[in-house]
């Protein structure tokens, strides 16, 4: 999601019609850009990453000219043949192989327009540019340099220039070390010995992509002709980005002139063509639109479209999100408005069904609350310490998170009990006795292809001056009574229980849980000072036994 700030007067001028704030907030959002707030002339607009063409007031205006019925159909941009050339040296192959370029002439730029262009550039860097790694853009005042240009990779200490925001000559390496943009984006060039630059016929640097431009070429309000460079790692992305910028500038009245890059003329603003079958549209959307109505709506979304056996669609050169007929269908429905579709439930003959284990879980929840326990709801995330030291366990036998926010989230629990001890800790200021249970999931390491699986467990805990082992045993017996099965208790050795008051729960001789009274030491670790007892049982084993 990208948040833009645009000037309403600029928007109105470019769209060619003035809209009430309310209409923009209410209706403009249905295009897929959310108009959150309009304060005077400042509009806050949020756009989605699949539509970089909406990251500027120019692009937004173009889209709304269609959506609000002012100028429908594809906007055609002329490209005049220019004679500026860019040579691409093979040294860039390993570093940043692709470059695109274009010239836009006869511009009349205000400070506001320039600010908007910088915003567009920055947002494109962040979104489709993946923080400049995949894509970086430079705009240059063409009058300050001499064509032809060369794109090449050089040794960092061999070249120097005065970067934007600084007033001294710096070598490329120095820029990475000292300049704030250098520091911020140095990671992209981390493994490289040579760095890419664009230089002019006289050896002056225009740009050191993806880091910074030369101060020399900075665009200002007197700039009339602009040279755009886009460099990056993916050819298609570079070209789409170039088209997006070039057409945004053309919306400002500039005339586009081609640049020859390594023999190839750019930008290529011709549309891609696709077909949309009206029957397929009706099938997917559930909307009974005529072919002509579909065409109309495509044009509202700025596509070129004409009828035939299937609708021939021209996809504007700045769209990079249209990959399948589904994408066209979505845009037709957006133009039709989601709100204008009647909800319709199809006939599907199916009876609702829950997971087998869920029914048993719900019954156990009922029994436990009837037995007087309060239900807790805790995180599956746990602190590694809570699953080891604090319960006197040595082995780290659980799922470990690689990049946790903090220690609290560094593992997934393999036991429920620590979560309940934490609940008691948080309720120390409330009255006693306190009785809790939770039926929930733990994650256990195993030899499945993933290496870990969820397991459903239920744990019970009771604490209070008078509490002891027997309280846990009593409630376990309620479970036995109401489920009508036998749970066998044998002496056990859980490290968190008192040695003489630790038991294992067996179902038909197979281990299914544990029961006991906590040791002083473990209670101390959780800052609990009253006798505490509990049990934990495997609900899946319980369920299997019940179904036998």
């Amino acid at each position, binding site marked *: 999601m990208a948040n833009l700030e645009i000037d309403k007067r600029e928007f109105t001028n470019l769209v060619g019609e003035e809209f009430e704030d309310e209409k923009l907030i209410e209706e403009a959002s249905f295009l897929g850009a959310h108009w959150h707030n309009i304060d005077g002339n400042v509009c806050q607009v949020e756009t989605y990453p699949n539509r970089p063409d909406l990251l500027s007031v120019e692009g937004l205006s173009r889209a709304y000219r269609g959506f609000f019925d002012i100028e429908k159909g594809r906007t055609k941009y002329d490209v005049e043949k220019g004679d500026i050339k860019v040579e691409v040296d093979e040294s860039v192959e390993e570093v940043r192989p692709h470059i695109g370029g274009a010239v836009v002439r006869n511009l009349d730029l205000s400070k506001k327009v320039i600010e908007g262009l910088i915003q567009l550039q920055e947002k494109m860097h962040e979104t489709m540019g993946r923080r400049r790694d995949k894509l970086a853009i430079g705009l240059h005042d063409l009058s300050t340099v001499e064509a032809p240009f060369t794109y090449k990779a050089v040794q960092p200490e061999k070249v120097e220039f005065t970067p934007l925001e600084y007033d001294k000559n710096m070598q490329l390496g120095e820029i990475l070390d000292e300049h704030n943009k250098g520091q911020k984006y140095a990671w992209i060039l981390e493994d490289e010995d040579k760095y890419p630059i664009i230089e002019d016929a006289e050896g002056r640097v225009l740009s050191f992509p993806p880091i910074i431009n030369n101060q020399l070429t900075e665009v200002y309000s007197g700039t009339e002709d602009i040279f755009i460079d886009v460099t990056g790692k993916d050819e298609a992305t570079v070209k789409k980005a170039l088209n997006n910028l070039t057409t945004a500038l053309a919306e400002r009245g500039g005339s586009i002139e081609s640049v020859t890059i390594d023999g190839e003329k750019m930008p290529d603003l011709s549309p891609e063509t696709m077909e949309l079958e009206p029957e397929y549209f009706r099938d997917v959307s559930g909307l009974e639109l005529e072919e002509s109505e579909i065409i109309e709506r495509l044009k509202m979304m700025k596509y070129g479209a004409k009828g035939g056996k299937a609708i021939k669609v021209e996809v504007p050169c700045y769209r990079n999100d249209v990959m399948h007929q589904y994408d066209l269908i979505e845009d037709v429905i957006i133009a039709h408005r989601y709100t204008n579709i009647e*909800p319709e439930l*199809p006939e599907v003959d199916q009876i609702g*069904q829950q997971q087998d284990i869920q029914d048993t879980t719900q019954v156990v929840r009922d029994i436990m609350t009837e037995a007087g326990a309060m239900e807790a709801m805790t995180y599956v995330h746990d602190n590694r310490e809570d699953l080891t030291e604090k319960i006197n366990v040595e082995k780290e036998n659980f799922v470990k998170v690689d990049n946790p*926010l903090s220690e609290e989230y560094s593992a997934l629990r393999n036991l429920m009990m620590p979560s309940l001890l934490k609940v008691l800790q948080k309720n120390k200021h409330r009255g006693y006795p306190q009785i809790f249970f939770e039926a929930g999931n733990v994650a256990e390491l195993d030899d499945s292809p993933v290496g870990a699986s969820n397991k459903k467990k239920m744990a019970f805990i009771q604490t209070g001056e008078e509490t002891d082992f027997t309280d846990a045993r009593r409630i376990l017996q309620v479970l036995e009574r109401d489920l009508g099965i036998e749970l066998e208790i044998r002496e056990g050795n859980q490290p968190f229980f008192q040695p003489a008051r630790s038991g294992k729960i067996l179902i038909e001789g197979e281990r299914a849980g544990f029961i006991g009274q906590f040791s002083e030491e473990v209670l101390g670790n959780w800052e609990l000072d009253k006798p505490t007892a509990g049990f934990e049982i495997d609900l899946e084993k319980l369920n299997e036994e019940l179904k036998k």
Partner: protein
Amino acid sequence: MRLSSQAIRVLERLKQDETKSVTEFEEEGFDQATVNRALLELEEEDLAQSEEQEEIVQEVTEKGEEILDNCSPEYKIIQQLDSGITPIQELEGNTNIGVGKAKQKGWIDIDGGKVSKTSEGEEVDVDPVKDKLENENFDDELEERGLVRSEARTTKTLKLTDEGKEIEISDIEEDFNVEAPAETPRTGKKHYYKNILQFARETWMEMGFEEMSGDYVVPSFLNFDALYTPQDHPARELHDTFFVENPENTDLSEYEDKVQNVAETHQNGWETGSKGYGGEWSKEESERNVLRTHTTAISANRLHKMDINEEELPKKLFIVGRNFRNETVDRHHLAEFYQTDGIVVGKDLNFANLKGYISEFFEKMGYSEFRLIPAYYPYTEMSVEVQVWDEEDEEWLGMGGAGMFRPEVVKPMLGFEAKVLAWGLGIPRIASIAAGLTDIRELYRNDILIINETPVWRPNWKKNRGDQ
């Protein structure tokens, strides 16, 4: 003399101890309101008197707990300067606060974007903030930084008068007052949030949906690749997704050729009629385990496991489950949250049907008005955000996303073309409203008082909702 039965019980206890605080009464199982009412009666008859004392109780906040687990942001900064002068951009941690505080404390100098230790900074060997928190040495700094919270608690103590000491219980006649409230017993009680989740499950089943299940740890393949999320998508970065250190990778062999089909779909569209994203696709990347960021990963797996032929369609499936995102936890965000996903798989399904299911579900959950607005998810097209109208606050509330799975998702995983309606909706919001919470973290705090006093939620019982 006549007294209520409750006043007699309180008097009985007081006669044993002479003075007793309301809290102590509570610990013995008395209800606070009962003790107060009894006190009024006892005061009236001069049998007891009360004394109030205000006490400031300080406790460590969640923010403070985090420092206890790690260290203060400024200490983190100073630690990183051990190796010498460092550019500010290279510092890790919460640098905004950390650098600010360290500067304020005179530990560091900043010059031209570079940070160095002052002589005072050199001398810092323990983290003073953590130290104060550990030793419960709470001062103004901790409070101002929101690491510690103070609460004034009034303790009321009951004391017998001489007359109270003298009177014999047997001389008191028990008064019966039908209007006097009794004590509400502490009973077993289910958690309000679990009940709402259960209600949502029952709603899907009522609508004929079959329940799916799946694990928290899943390969990136299910969470992202099968859902047509490009491998360089920002959601796949460390700051959005929890990756798993152990077990680190999944053996994808159960997916057989589907791995290759997904790879080709990303690269060139494979047989889906799509152009694909182009670029590289790495199998290693898709083997990396993550904590699922959405239950949609389980829907994707279900498409794979749905070993049925086309005649057996359509099929309706749902899950209510937990998901994990690497978010900074605050009053609006949790790192762990519930979502309900549903998919309907069939040949004759369309977007109007999607709207039908969602409207049906939310109507049953108590929202009569809803709308869909355009959104973007890599795996759906029609991608919409579902909003419901909140009558109380008179605003549209975002409830999650929905759409139709892209053909790029369906064909590789299901094995043939079909239409799949899909959604992933949030429930925490409904629960917060039900319990009148302003802080979403409360859902997992398990405060006895809140669980005890939150009434049962039903979508059309509007009267019993807590204050918002």
